[in-house]
C-alpha cells in the first residue's frame, strides 16, 4: 500500500530530547556551510581546479538523513556531495585536499570534487553523472539483502535527476525486490537554470515515486528534525525487511549551480528570502535556543569551531604535496591484468 505523508505531518516529528545530539548536528551543518563558502572562494582564487557544486543551503538534508544511519550503512552521492561526504564522517582535510588535487586527498587527487570516496566510512562516492549514484546505492542494497547484512544503502538524487529514466528503473527494482534502500531526492527547485515547473510533469516528485508502490514522503528539507525522522523511519522499515522508501526533501541551494554560474534565472530576492526565512542552521539554532539549550556564546563557539576546522583543512591542503605524476594510472591495476605477459 502506498503511503504519502504530508509535509505538515513530518514537520511535527519529535526532536530527539538530547541537546548534545542536536548541537552536534548544528556543528556539523556549520562545518559544511563554512567548507562550502570557502570552497567557492578557493575556486575563484584558482586554488581548486575545475570548479565545484556548492551544497550551501542543503546542509540539513545531508546531516539529518545521515545522522539517522549507522556506520555500516552506505551512502552514495551526486555531483553536489560535499555535504554528504562530510556528514558521513570524511575528514574535511582529505576532502579539501582532494578538491585541490593534492596527494593527500581521498583519491590522491585523481578524482576531485565529483569523485570523492571513503570506503572506510562507507561513503560510496560523489558522482559526475546525474542519477547514477542512486543506482550504485541500489546495487549495494541488493548485495546487503543477498548477504543478509543488517545495513541499508542510501542514494541521493536531485530534482533534475528525477527526470532521468535511470532513476525510475532503480526505484522500480528496489521496490520490486524490497531492497534495504532509501532514495533521497534533494529537490532544490533547480537543475542548473531550469526550475522544476519547466521540467517536471505531474504534481510532485514524491507523487511520481508513489506510483512505484513504495512509501514516498515529502519533507521540509530545511528542518533537520523532520529529515532525520523521515530517514529514521525509512531505515527501520528497510532493516525490518519491509523494503525501500523514497524521501523528497524540499530544499534550496544558495549558490549558483557551479562556480561562475550566471544566475539570471532567479531573483536575488528569492535566494535572500530562503536564506532569511528557511535557513536550516538558523532553524535548528532557534529550536535549541527556545528550549534553553543554546545561548549566543554557545552558538558563537560552534561557529568558531567550524571555522577553525575548515581553516585547518585548507591549511592542510595548501601544505600537502602534489601527487607524483607516476600515479596517473596506479589506481586502476586492471589496466594491466594480473598475469598479463609483458
Amino acid at each position, binding site marked *: 500500500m502506498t503511503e504519502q505523508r504530508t509535509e505538515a505531518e513530518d514537520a511535527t516529528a519529535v526532536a530527539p530530547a538530547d541537546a548534545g545530539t542536536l548541537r552536534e548536528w548544528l556543528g556539523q551543518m556549520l562545518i559544511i556551510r563554512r567548507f562550502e563558502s570557502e570552497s567557492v572562494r578557493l575556486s575563484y582564487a584558482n586554488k581548486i*581546479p*575545475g*570548479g565545484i557544486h556548492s551544497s550551501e543551503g542543503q546542509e540539513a538534508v545531508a546531516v539529518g538523513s545521515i545522522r539517522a544511519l549507522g556506520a555500516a550503512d552506505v551512502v552514495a552521492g551526486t555531483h553536489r556531495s560535499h555535504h554528504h561526504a562530510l556528514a558521513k564522517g570524511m575528514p574535511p582535510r582529505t576532502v579539501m585536499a582532494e578538491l585541490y*588535487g*593534492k596527494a593527500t*586527498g581521498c583519491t*590522491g*587527487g*585523481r*578524482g*576531485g*570534487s*565529483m*569523485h570523492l570516496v571513503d570506503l572506510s566510512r562507507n561513503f560510496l562516492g560523489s*558522482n*559526475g*553523472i*546525474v*542519477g547514477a549514484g542512486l543506482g550504485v546505492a541500489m546495487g549495494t542494497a541488493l548485495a546487503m539483502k543477498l548477504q543478509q547484512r543488517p545495513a541499508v544503502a542510501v542514494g541521493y538524487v536531485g530534482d*533534475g*535527476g528525477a*527526470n*532521468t*529514466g*535511470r532513476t525510475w528503473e532503480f526505484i522500480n527494482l528496489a521496490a520490486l525486490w524490497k531492497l534495504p534502500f532509501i532514495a533521497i531526492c534533494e529537490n532544490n527547485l533547480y*537543475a*542548473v*537554470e*531550469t526550475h522544476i515547473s*519547466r*521540467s*517536471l510533469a505531474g504534481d510532485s516528485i514524491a507523487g511520481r515515486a508513489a506510483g512505484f508502490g513504495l512509501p514516498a514522503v515529502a519533507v521540509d528539507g530545511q528542518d533537520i528534525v523532520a529529515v532525520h525522522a523521515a530517514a529514521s523511519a525509512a531505515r527501520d522499515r528497510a532493516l525490518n525487511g519491509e523494503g525501500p522508501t523514497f524521501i523528497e526533501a524540499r530544499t534550496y541551494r544558495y549558490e549558483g549551480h557551479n562556480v561562475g554560474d*550566471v544566475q*539570471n*534565472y532567479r531573483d536575488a530576492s528569492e535566494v535572500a528570502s530562503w536564506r532569511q526565512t528557511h535557513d536550516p542552521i538558523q532553524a535548528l539554532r532557534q529550536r535549541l535556543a527556545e528550549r534553553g539549550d543554546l545561548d549566543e556564546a554557545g552558538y558563537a563557539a560552534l561557529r568558531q569551531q567550524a571555522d577553525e576546522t575548515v581553516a585547518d583543512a585548507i591549511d592542510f591542503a595548501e601544505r600537502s604535496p*602534489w*601527487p607524483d*605524476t607516476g*600515479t*596517473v*594510472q596506479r589506481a*586502476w591495476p586492471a*589496466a594491466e591484468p594480473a598475469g598479463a605477459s609483458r
Partner: protein
Amino acid sequence: MSPLSYSQAYRAGLAEEMEANPGIFVMGTDIFLRGGHFAQLLGLGERFGADRIRDVPISEAAMVAAGVGAAIQGMRPVVDLNFQEFAYGAMDELCNQAAKIHYMFDIPVPLVIRATNGIAYGGAQHNTAMESWFAEMPGLYVAVPATPADAKGLIKTALHLDDPVLFLMHKALTGARGETGGPDVRVPFGRASVVRPGDQVTLIGYGVTVRTCTEAAGQLAGDGISAEVIDLRTLYPLDVETVTDSLRKTGRAVMVDESAGYGGVSAEIAAALQEAAFDYLDAPILRVHAPHSPVPQSPPLLQAYLPDHGAVEQAVRTQLARP
C-alpha cells in the same frame, strides 16, 4: 569579417541554417536562457523562441529519441547533449535507432547530435575520448572541428545531410578565435585539411591535437625538420587519401589523439596507411596518445596524462633516428 570564437562560429553557422530552414530546431538542457554550457547557443533563444531553442529536462535518452522521431518525420533536430559523456545514457537511441533506421526502414534520419568532447578538468566521468566509438558505428557521421571556420562550415554541411551526425566540439577550443567563411561556405565531410605543409614527416590530429601537432611542427622546424600537419576534420568519413598522399611524400607518419591508446581512429589510420602505401614507409607509423586509464583531475596528473607537443617531437626524432 571579424574573427569569431569557436562557439560563436558554430552558433553563426547554426543560426544561418535555422533562418533558411524552419524545420531546424534545437533540444537540450539549459539552452534557452543560458545558451548552453559553452555559450554555443547564446542569444538564439531570444532570436528563435522557445519552440526552436527547446529546453529539455535531464533526459538524454528521451531527447535523442525525440530527435530521431522528429527527424524521420521531416524535421531537422539538433540535440545538444552538452558533454559527450551524456551520450552514455542515450546509447541505444543513438547507435541502435538513429544509426540504423535509414538502413532498416529506408527513411532519412537528418539528426545532428552536438556535444562537447575532449580531455580537460572535470574528472573521469566528464572526460572520455570516445569519439572513435561513434565513427565505428555504421550509419553515423562524426565531425570534429578544430577551428572556428570548420565549426561553422561543418555544422552547415551537417544540416544538409540525410544521416545522423555526431558533431563533437573540443572543450579546450571553446574560446579559440579565427576567421570564418560566409553564408555559402559549407565544409565537406570526408576532406582532411593540410594545415601546414612539410616533407619529412606527416603529423595527423583532430580537434585540439591539431594544435599539438602544429606546435610540434614549429619546434621541429627550429631544428631543420619539416613536418606536414593534417587535420582530419571528420572521423567518418575518414579522408585516407589526403593522409596517404602526404605519407607518399614524407615517408613517416605520427598520429596524435587524446585516446587511451587502444583501437580507435589512430589505429584505423595506421592500418589504412600501411595497406595503401607500405612501400613508401621509412619508419614505423607511431601513435601519440594518453595512457590507458580514466582521466585524472589533479593539475599535475592531468598534465602528465595529456599528450603534448614534446611527445610528438620525440616520436618524430625516433623515426628520423632510424638508419
